[in-house]
């Protein structure tokens, strides 16, 4: 198995196998579009500045419109969407967001509390 031709043959076989497996797996890929968030998503923030019911994960496909309504039990300083770098004052509730999901990745939505701490209230997953 040491001749030059045999080696090239094995390498070619590997390349072919890699491409075939890639194409097969990729075409079977259907995890897109499944459970994406639609319409206005409401996020409640309790009086301790923590999200009621834990940090929610909201899934979108790239290009979808993200619509969030953050309802705060007490006034806080701001609500901040990471990555998109949208920050809105949160002295008055509700705080509304509407923007196109034109950046894929995972982004935290965070409340900046009046006592200068901050914490996540939701996580946006934007699929490519």
């Amino acid at each position, binding site marked *: *198995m*040491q001749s030059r031709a*045999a*080696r090239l043959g*094995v*390498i070619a*076989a*590997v390349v072919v*196998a*890699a491409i075939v*497996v*890639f194409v097969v*797996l*990729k075409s*079977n*890929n259907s*995890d897109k579009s499944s459970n994406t968030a639609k319409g206005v998503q409401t996020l409640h923030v309790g009086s*301790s*500045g*923590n999200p009621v019911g*834990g940090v929610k994960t909201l899934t979108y496909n790239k290009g979808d419109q993200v619509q969030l309504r953050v309802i705060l039990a007490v006034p806080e300083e701001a609500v901040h969407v*990471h*990555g998109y*770098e949208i920050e809105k004052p949160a002295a008055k509730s509700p705080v509304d967001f509407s923007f196109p999901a*034109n*950046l*894929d*990745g*995972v*982004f*935290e939505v965070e409340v*900046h509390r009046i*006592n*200068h*701490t*901050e*914490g996540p209230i939701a996580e946006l*997953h*934007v*699929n*490519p």
Partner: protein
Amino acid sequence: MRVRSPGFSSRTSPSAHALVGRKDLPVPAWLFAWGASLVLIISFALLSVAWTTARLQKEDWRPTPRWFSRVVLNPLTQVICGLVGVFLLFLVLYAGFRGIEDPTHNFSIIFVFYTFWLGMVVLSVLLGDVFRAFNPWRAIGRVVSGGFRLVAGQSAPTPFRYPEWLGRWPAVLGVLLFIWLELIAGGGIAPTPHKVAVATVIYTTITFVCMALFGVEEWIGRGEAFNAYFGMFSQLGPLERRDDRVGLRKFLTGAPQWALVPGAAALVLTSIAVTSFDGAQEGVLSGAITWTFDRCSDAGLSLPNSFRVANTIWMLITLAAVSGLYWLGVAGMHTVRGSPAVKQLGRSFAHSLIPIALAYLVAHYFSAFLYQEQAQFTYILSDPLGHGSDLFGTAGGGINYGIVSSNTVWYVQVGALVVGHVVALTLAHDRALAVYDNVRHASRSQYFMLAVMVGFTCFGLFLLSQANA
């Protein structure tokens, strides 16, 4: 920008506050499956086409033209590089003590954990052991010992010889503590610039003491953690300095010699383990860490301390698991006839994991590095303290998180792991041919190494497919 100290009031495990505004989506299942099957296909193909006499054991180092060495290594360049290093060390301390507390806007955080810790790895692979030239502790040490020679007329005495058994162990400890500072010391949030500055002062002090005890070049060349860590990656590249000449060697031929020192295996395994831990902290291990965290806080520890204890325990468990996998493979190899003692065998193959350590770094930090370097060269550059200065007119700049798409990130991550795997197998195979006296034994020993490498690579892929923070 206001000073914020992120806190946590709920009884849930606080996760390390992301410095980065955009985290990567987990590698999709199909790509994970592809990467894993590719790894298997390539591994077996490699076994069947591989060469039968060792080719990478001799360095075959050839000096570059004399003028080139003179340009690179003349005293003026050395002084300039040393000054740059010392200036950056000073800036880390100054920004840490005097700058804004917000880690995302302080030079000391972005520089130490991204530009320095990750960027220097890239430079080391491409250009060789460049950190040595910029090493601020070495530069100061050389000035002090030079001054001593001038005044006393003789070299400063070094009370101790660097013990052989100590090898790369100080670097192992250094890397562990550095990552502990990055991921754990903050107790659930990023370490404050102040903490980083204090750690820098402590490390600087230790380094000065050790240089005084063992000699400047001796300590820098063997005990100093960053030099040893970056030096490890520089073994993969072709450029190496010897005395007053810069030379070229064949790719990968530097690595085999590197591993024969005590602690070398531990250093490369530590590097793989801490990167794994960083990837697993908010993914695979988050449940286990939360459980431990709850037990700690039930026992009466404060929340930050519970975070520290829980994460320290799991970081050490990760280290034990990663090391265990490697030594298990070595023990398997030992069953092949003609094997040297287990300890020696483990050392002989440790260098073959350097490409995997590098691949893990690329896979886990590639996107974060691209983002943070934008910060480094825009607002951090013009406003290193976060006090509102605008030295170079770039303070208004920000991070463009759209610079790479998720698809690009995924392909780079999976590609890095697969390439690292192939290079690692190549190095291990070649070493086996040198260690064993016949090809059949060498090939048999490699079934075990193959299992170890496939284990590491698929584990790396698995981490990326779970959470990709």
